[in-house]
């Protein structure tokens, strides 16, 4: 009855080491041979696809054969590689051999063996960031190898306070996940929340860091991302210094950042590379773009369905003449255009880059012009929809722009139902939803609600760096002071 339980993949089903090895021999890439010397012999077992064979031949085997092996204890002494262990624990042996260790036994029936690490480390070289490209600033991006990613962060932050807590997640994939934080700066409660949530994960596979993000996020039923992902090591380092927590996982070129706030999704990392006035105006433009992107099509639908009176008569002429041949009500017109933009985007995202560009041109220009000429849509709405699609792409975090475009559709429906009143009600729903959201237990709408004036220095606008001398309040850092601002004693005067 409970046979399926016994058939679980745990190594306990093997009685002893020889049986384990017999089982492993089912795989074609598992090598096993006996090394025979004059007066001693030993057995070597490893996966050739996991082990660095040159290293094995050049740096491990010569030391084993130079003198006859008496006992297993000789091996750690002879092999000049750190991490050689002796073990008879089947679970450990199984785990290590699957991670690229070489098993060495002295005879074919021995239950104890030596494990020598000799993993092959194949990883993509560090390349330029593609999603978060900036003109100025570092050109390094995270890659799939966890060790490389950790290196990229550690070399930027050479302090012993940087802790990397490791958790293994996923019953099958055994993915290594690392929680990075600065000890004594990051709030302990936040760190424990992340650790706890990672340890509570109970799934068989972790494909990517995005899966971890979905699993540890606070409200799983929200279209809004509650953790930021970045591919820039400099951004990850920078938020670590603020007292945030970074989660890296093996096989994923993205780092998760938390706790975060809504406004952080609208701040590009490039904002810190430019002057504060330029940065602040860029942020204001982005926030305007978001509001524009969500609200403008619903307002068009609401106005043209119910509230013609709102439009002054000079403007009304333009609108009416653009719509006089259109047989569809505004809502269908708007949904038709919004859907075609979504189609274009989806097609462009699925196709290779070069074909994608063609699709964009064909779709954007040909379909747009044709649908206006065919009298399906008004050109005013075409402009509005195209602009709002453009505006949604100004969000620096890719996930957020998806959410923004999705948010538009309930607004459209409400606008069709009750005009501007419907838009407001939908807006109220949105605000209530955002108010309820939390990121790692910290309020998501901070610093606007709860209002924290001190944190506004780096929210909707970014003040000069000398004002950024305190860590954000909402992170509840253990150490709130970043640096002491230099007091400028000599003030400029006209005659000096």
């Amino acid at each position: 009855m409970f046979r399926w339980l016994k058939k679980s993949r745990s190594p306990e089903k093997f009685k002893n080491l020889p049986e384990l090895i017999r089982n492993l021999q089912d795989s074609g890439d598992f090598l096993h041979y006996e090394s025979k010397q004059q007066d001693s012999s030993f057995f070597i077992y490893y996966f050739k696809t996991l082990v660095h064979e040159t290293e094995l031949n050049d740096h491990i085997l010569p030391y084993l054969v130079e003198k006859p092996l008496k006992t297993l204890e000789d091996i750690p002494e002879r092999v000049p590689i750190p991490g050689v262990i002796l073990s008879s624990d089947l679970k450990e042996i199984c785990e290590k051999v699957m991670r690229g260790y070489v098993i060495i036994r002295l005879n074919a029936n021995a239950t104890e063996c030596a494990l020598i690490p000799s993993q092959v480390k194949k990883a993509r070289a560090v390349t330029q960031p593609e999603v978060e490209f900036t003109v100025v600033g570092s050109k390094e991006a995270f890659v799939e190898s966890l060790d490389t990613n950790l290196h990229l962060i550690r070399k930027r932050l050479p302090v012993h306070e940087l802790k990397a807590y490791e958790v293994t997640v996923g019953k099958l994939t055994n993915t290594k996940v690392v929680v990075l934080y600065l000890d004594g700066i990051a709030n302990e409660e936040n760190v424990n929340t992340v650790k706890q949530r990672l340890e509570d994960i109970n799934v068989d596979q972790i494909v990517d860091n995005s899966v971890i993000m979905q699993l540890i996020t606070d409200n799983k039923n929200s279209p809004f991302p509650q953790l930021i992902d970045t591919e820039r090591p400099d951004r990850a380092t920078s938020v670590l210094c603020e007292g945030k927590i970074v989660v890296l996982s093996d096989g994923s070129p993205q780092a998760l950042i938390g706790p975060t706030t809504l406004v952080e999704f609208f701040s590009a990392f490039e904002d810190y590379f430019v002057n504060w006035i330029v940065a602040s105006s860029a942020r204001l433009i982005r926030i305007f773009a978001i509001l524009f992107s969500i609200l403008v099509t619903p307002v068009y639908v609401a106005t043209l369905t119910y509230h013609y009176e709102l439009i002054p008569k000079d403007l009304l002429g333009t609108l009416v003449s653009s719509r006089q041949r259109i047989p569809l009500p505004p809502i269908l017109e708007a949904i038709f255009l919004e859907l075609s933009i979504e189609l274009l985007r989806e097609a462009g995202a699925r196709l290779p880059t070069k074909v994608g560009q063609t699709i964009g041109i064909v779709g954007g220009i040909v379909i747009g012009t044709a649908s206006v000429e065919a009298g399906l849509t008004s050109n005013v709405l075409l402009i509005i929809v195209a602009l709002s699609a453009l505006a949604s792409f100004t969000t620096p975090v890719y996930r957020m722009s998806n959410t923004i475009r999705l948010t538009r559709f309930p607004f459209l429906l409400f606008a069709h139902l009750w005009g501007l009143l419907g838009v407001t009600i939908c807006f109220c729903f949105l605000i209530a939803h955002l108010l309820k959201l939390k990121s790692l237990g910290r309020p998501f709408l901070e610093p606007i609600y709860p209002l924290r004036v001190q944190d506004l220095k780096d929210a909707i606008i970014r003040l000069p760096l000398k004002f950024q001398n305190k860590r954000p309040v909402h992170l509840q850092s253990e150490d709130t002071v970043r640096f002491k601002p230099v007091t400028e004693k000599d003030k400029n005067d006209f005659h000096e």
Partner: protein
Amino acid sequence: MAGPEVKDQYKVSPFLVFYLVHSVQVGVGVMGFQRISTKYAGNDAWISVLAAGLSLNLIIFLIYKIMLKEKGDLISLHHNLFGKWIGGLLSLIVIAYFIAMGITVLRTYIEVVQVWMFPDLNKWIFGTVFLLLVYYCLSGGFRVVAGISFFGVVIPFYLILAMIFPLFYGHFRDLLPIFNHSLMEMYEGVKGASLSYLGFTTLFMYLPFIKEPEKSHRWAQGGHLLTVFIYTIVMITTIAFFSPEQLQKTVWATLTTWKIAEMPFVQRFEYIGIASWALVILPNLCITIWAAGRGIRRLSRVSQQSVTIPILVLILISSSLFARRESIDLLNQYTSKVGFYFVYIYVPFVFVFQYIKSKVGR
């Protein structure tokens, strides 16, 4: 009966009382309180509004005196002062009053929408969606209610700019002569203005949810003063803009003044105003329904979640039953009257009673 114990994580900072007080006051009242006040006080109505407002500062002071001594909410106060049965009955009356306020607010708003925007708006469907929205907010706890009241004040604040346009057409000589009405007429004007000020008595219920309640006193006064300021400005503008006879025939004077606002890209500003007003109404309903639900939860052992749904259904049904203009007006008048006596007679009475009881008890 001891006051409720609220965990720190559910408490909100004291300055939010500013928004909680202000947002629950500004509701449907401000859309048309001018007619009732000017009926008696004429061109001196703005003095009535100002006087009513400033006198309520004293009442807020009394509420804080009572509550800081009690260290609890209205339910525990009633229980401790009047015993289990009479106290419980009084609490029930207050809860009923909160619910009635919710009904008034929702029904009046639906009426405004029906008259000004959508004559054939289905009040059942609209009411259901709106109350669903309220439930969604309430399900986030008091923190979200306070947040909604914060945004309900901050976001629609641009509507105050719409009061600039009538200034161009107003005749401020209409305000003169000042003090040409008797005190009795002024008093009637104060009574008429009071509905638009009511609602801050919900302070009795949510004060335990404020971190360091004693610090929130000045914020409560400040929030109320902002209301007084806005109402006085609106009143002065209205008196200058309308002739007295015209004003008596205008039910929603504020909305009528918005009608003349004109900008290059928009006119008929009242459509935007009424639509945005949903965001002003929402905290009103949230706070009153929260207070009512909280009251019942404290009186009995039912959870606030399970009691909120019946309250919402009750509000939906009873607000939809008021169909005619006269009955809605009557509802407004009665709620206003009850609120008036609650604030001006009951609160000082409780203050005196608590004072005497603490002296005698010793």
